[in-house]
């Protein structure tokens, strides 16, 4: 390195210091510790129950734990519903909110509003709305003459949560809107002159340019789906009969309800592994369909 390069290196690292320290203390070390703990049994009730090395026992037990598979299955079931629906709805909304009609500021604000509400408030609101006897949804269904649905019953609880997630797409829509600004008007006009209808213009011009944004939102959505905890915690407590027992809920219970800290670390590590695999797959597939520039 030249002298200038070395000076820049130290200057750069100096500015990066807050992040470097934070990364070490709040990310790198905890992940390492968490890995170590996943091979231990301990309860954080020091001085009692100090970490005891038990090798692969936690992982062995996880494989035989029906709740592990159930919570994993639940999370994947939710992702299978909420991810595609969320992507479609948010993209669709962004497209329609991008149209040149008056009052777009108001419309956009309304769509964005639900994402401002604290998760706990919206969880309670929807708990109320989904109530089989007293809730708004069954009341509206009754108006049209359809029978009420047991929204939070065992069969429908997960789909209901996926439905509820569509209410909070505001964040994603805003990002799509920002991305849509980058679609050059000239290209669209040229396509129209060439005789392309609105659908063709969408598929051939807009979407390809939008692919980086779609990719970004996909990654965020995957991460979000696997981090979901507040809503089921408040609304259903994981029930009924574990129908909404998400993976993060399983982790939280084992850590803070039963104080099986080692077991919880193993659970968390598997979650990390799954998240890495999923985002890795997304990155790999990105080469096929994401067009930069």
């Amino acid at each position, binding site marked *: 390195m030249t002298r200038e390069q070395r000076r820049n290196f130290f200057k750069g690292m100096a500015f*990066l210091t807050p*992040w470097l320290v934070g990364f070490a203390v709040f990310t790198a070390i905890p992940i390492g510790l968490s890995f170590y703990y996943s091979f231990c049994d301990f309860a954080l009730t020091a001085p009692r129950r100090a970490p005891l090395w038990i090798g692969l026992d936690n992982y062995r037990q996880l494989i035989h734990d029906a709740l592990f598979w159930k919570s994993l299955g639940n999370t994947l079931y939710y992702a299978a519903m909420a991810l595609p629906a969320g992507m479609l709805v948010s993209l669709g909304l962004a497209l329609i909110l991008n149209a*040149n009609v008056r009052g777009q500021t108001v419309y956009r604000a309304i769509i964005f509003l639900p994402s401002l509400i604290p998760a706990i408030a919206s969880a309670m609101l929807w708990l109320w709305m989904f109530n089989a006897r007293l809730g708004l949804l069954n*009341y509206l269904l009754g108006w049209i003459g359809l029978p009420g649905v047991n929204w939070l019953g065992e069969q429908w609880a997960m789909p209901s949560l996926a439905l509820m997630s569509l209410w909070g797409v505001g964040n994603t829509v805003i990002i799509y809107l920002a991305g849509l600004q980058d679609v050059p008007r000239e290209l669209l006009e040229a396509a129209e002159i060439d005789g392309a209808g609105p659908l063709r213009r969408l598929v051939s011009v807009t979407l390809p340019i939008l692919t980086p944004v779609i990719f970004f939102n996909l990654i965020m959505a995957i991460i979000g789906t696997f981090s979901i905890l507040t809503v089921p915690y408040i609304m259903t407590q994981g029930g009924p009969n574990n129908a909404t027992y998400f993976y993060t809920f399983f982790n939280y219970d084992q850590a803070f309800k039963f104080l099986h800290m080692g077991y919880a670390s193993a659970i968390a590590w598997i979650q990390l592994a799954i998240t890495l695999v999923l985002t890795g797959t997304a990155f790999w597939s990105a080469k096929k369909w994401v067009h930069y520039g």
Partner: protein
Amino acid sequence: MMTAPATTRPLGNRWNAMMVHLGLICVCAGYLLPFIWMCSTSLKAVEQTTEIPPRFVPHPLRTDNYVKVFTHPSFHAVLFARNTLVIAIFTVLGTTLSSAIVAYGFARIPFHGRGILFGIMLATIMIPFPVTMVSVFRIFRWMDAHTARWFGPDNALQMLGTFKPLWLPAWFGSAFSIFLLRQFFMTLPKELSEAAKIDGCSEWGIFWRVILPLTKPVLAVVALFSFMNVWNDFLAPLVYIQRPEQYTLALGLEAFQNKVGGSEWNLLMAASIVVCLPTLILFFLAQRTFIEGIATTGGK
């Protein structure tokens, strides 16, 4: 920068425009309905909340529900608001300051390994909270045990049992804010820094006196996002706060939910609205800055 929302070119005929309006109105009605329902329930008397069929316009209008929220035995609105504010202020200050400093390093100083470190920083966004939750808790506990040994229990450096675990990490940069600020810094022309350097300014000087003042709008966005995250956060307080007198508003709302059944839905909705109010007001005030803030930084 923008006075009207950027859109596609004007629609050809009025019929198209009307269809779009109709679609938008339907969708927005769907999105607004829960809000309206929330407000309606918040003004009902308890007996009316369990009425079948439920009605939209409460009669009588019980605005005293809002008074009851503030005098509820389990929901100490003023205390919880104060707690949330304390955490919010420290978090927002920490986030904006530290993220700006780190982002400057990533954006304006070319050095070896910068790209890799930036990639690692972005990757940390993907780490789910539960993975580090237990270990961070243990690290705090370890720190507390040691400071207690040297300075006695209840000393100023104690982490657990105070608000510090909630706002201290913010002082080390927030990945999302760093990202936003870095994107913005990269759009500023190099000539600015070079001119300042010729004038004999140190790197820190350039940062503090030249670049930062230009960043006010983006800083505002970062501050706003940061504030709203803290205001609405439920999980971190759930893990780190146990004593009722330290509850934040989000935690406090749980007090209205009677798990044995018979929740006071009207008070719950009223309290929820009270808790949402600051973020809603802030959003309406800063709406344009908000949306533009993400657009100008590219969002990619």
